[in-house]
């Protein structure tokens, strides 16, 4: 299946050539979890992240589906 992975803030540094907010197309077997996609992208397993799949809060254990949009942020805030 195809997943859109979008990295924000400081996270593009883990994927050379990637740019904040620009989707990276990822091919993955069916039932791949968020955590597996993140590991394959080189993002440390113990990093505190904000995860959104199609705009909804997600966990590393969540299974992805075809054409899901996985947006990943480090811990950020402002206001």
């Amino acid at each position, binding site marked *: 299946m195809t997943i859109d992975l*979008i990295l*924000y*803030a*400081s996270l593009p540094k883990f994927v050379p050539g990637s740019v*904040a*907010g*620009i989707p990276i197309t990822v091919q993955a077997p069916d039932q791949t979890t968020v955590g597996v996609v993140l590991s394959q992208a080189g993002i440390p397993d113990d990093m*505190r992240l*904000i995860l*959104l799949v199609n*705009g*909804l*809060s997600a966990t590393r254990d969540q299974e992805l589906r075809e054409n899901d949009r996985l*947006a990943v*942020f*480090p*811990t*950020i*805030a*402002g*206001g």
Partner: protein
Amino acid sequence: MEKMLRINMGADGGPKASSIPVGEYSGLAGRALTSALVSKEVPPLCHPLGAENKLVISPGMLSGSLAANSGRLSVGCKSPLTGGIKESNAGGMASQTLARLGYAAIVIEGKPSGDDLYTIFINKDGVNINVDNSLKGLGNYALVEKLKQQYSEKACYISIGPVGEMKLASASIACTDMECRPTRHAGRGGTGAVMGSKNVKAIILDDTGMGMRKPKDPDKFKEANKRWVDGLKKHPVTGEGLAAYGTNVLTNILNEAGGYPTHNFMWGRFENHTKISGETQAALETERGGNPTHGCHRGCVMRCSGIYMDKYGQYLTKQPEYETVWAHGGNCGIDDLDTIAMLDRLDDDYGIDTIEMGATIGVAMEAGLAKFGDGAAAINFVNQVGKGTDMGRILGSGAAVTGKVFGVERVPVVKGQSMPAYDPRAVHGIGVTYATSPMGADHTAGYAVGSNILGIGGKTDPLSPEGQIELSRNLQIATAAVDSTGMCLFIAFAVLDQPETFQALIDMINAFYGFNLTADDVAELGKSVLRNERAFNAAAGFTSAHDRLPGFFTRDALPPHNVKFKVTDAELDQVFNF
């Protein structure tokens, strides 16, 4: 800070200043003091621009000390925008400077009978109040430049622009920053109009000869402050994230979460969000020789501010905040950072709340006065406000007035104050705060976005009403207390996640004052502030019917999640059941 400066602008023979003991307000500072004084001394039914209203300017409990991030100033009055009580909070150098001069508050009372415009100069030797009609109509930037020649570049300036002089309800009060630029504003609620109604153009604070405020127990204070700074530095938000990208780092995440109000709260996503995001803005600032990492006051370790240069590499404005970038950006369909930065500069110069102005332009665009995305039209609108044309005076009166004048239903306000950059349908917790805060729609009054979207201070579902009442209640109580300490509200990101950092803050206050406060005492302080504010509003005519969002939020679904605001009225009425 055992004295208070009372200035009667309407005294016989001209304005008169009296330095008096704080008396019954002893131990209070910041929002606790402004709200206690306004609720006790200002008649709730008075006209906000009348002689009976008072403008109260107070540094926080720890302002003027070595405590990191203690430089926030509270400005209180009856609001011309909401008709209720107001505490508007600003960074910059004013809070530290005023505290070091020894004043717990400046209280500006009464009203002069003539048209003369005044400056108030305060230093270690006392107070001078002078007529200076040459300052009439000056923007904040030109004003500060002129006053710097007369006084000192090392002084701090609190001022209003022409919109404050016109007494329009969106007028802000500017405070100068570390570079002596008028960039940090008490923006919300029209405090600048109240200052204008007192004919005060500028307050000049010069703390030459005054040292840092001294704690009662210096050793304990120093040790607690070290734990405090360590706690702020180790948290990923207060230690790294805010410094790297500023508050505008939120654009992308609110957009992804579908809670980024776009085209006057029509949609929850803006297709060109990456063009105006914090990441893009920080890179542009660095490329042009600006600076994305900068503190708004001395002693700030988070440094979420920045310096924005124009395309020629010349200073244009401070780094526009997330709320400003949203209000003038996605909310108006504008995707050009230079246009947004120019709007920020104009707002600061004319002395206008950026949130109210942006929301108002969104309403004006909805009314068909300009097309969404038309940056030149937005700049023209703000210039009209600054120049005081008939149209400008309508727009400068805020989103609610503009909506009425042009027949727009979708006006995102509560108690007459416009909503900031989070749609309550997709961020339910902040919707509860918008609806119920005594301030009107105000994200800082109880920042439920942290738990709803960012996973800070717990985790709640932003699309569900569940748990939002309790969340907003606790945050509103905590915020009222933080706003009384002089601390920047962003310390909450570390405090909510790290109990030991909260303890360091309490230890610092106790060491400074010789108190024995516990966490419960801090919560009680927050509750007492809210009780004062609620009592004032009730006497001013506010009821539970005013603690509601506009009807379209419960009727019209917001894309992309197609959600409505689902917290019931009965639930909203439980927020203040303490």
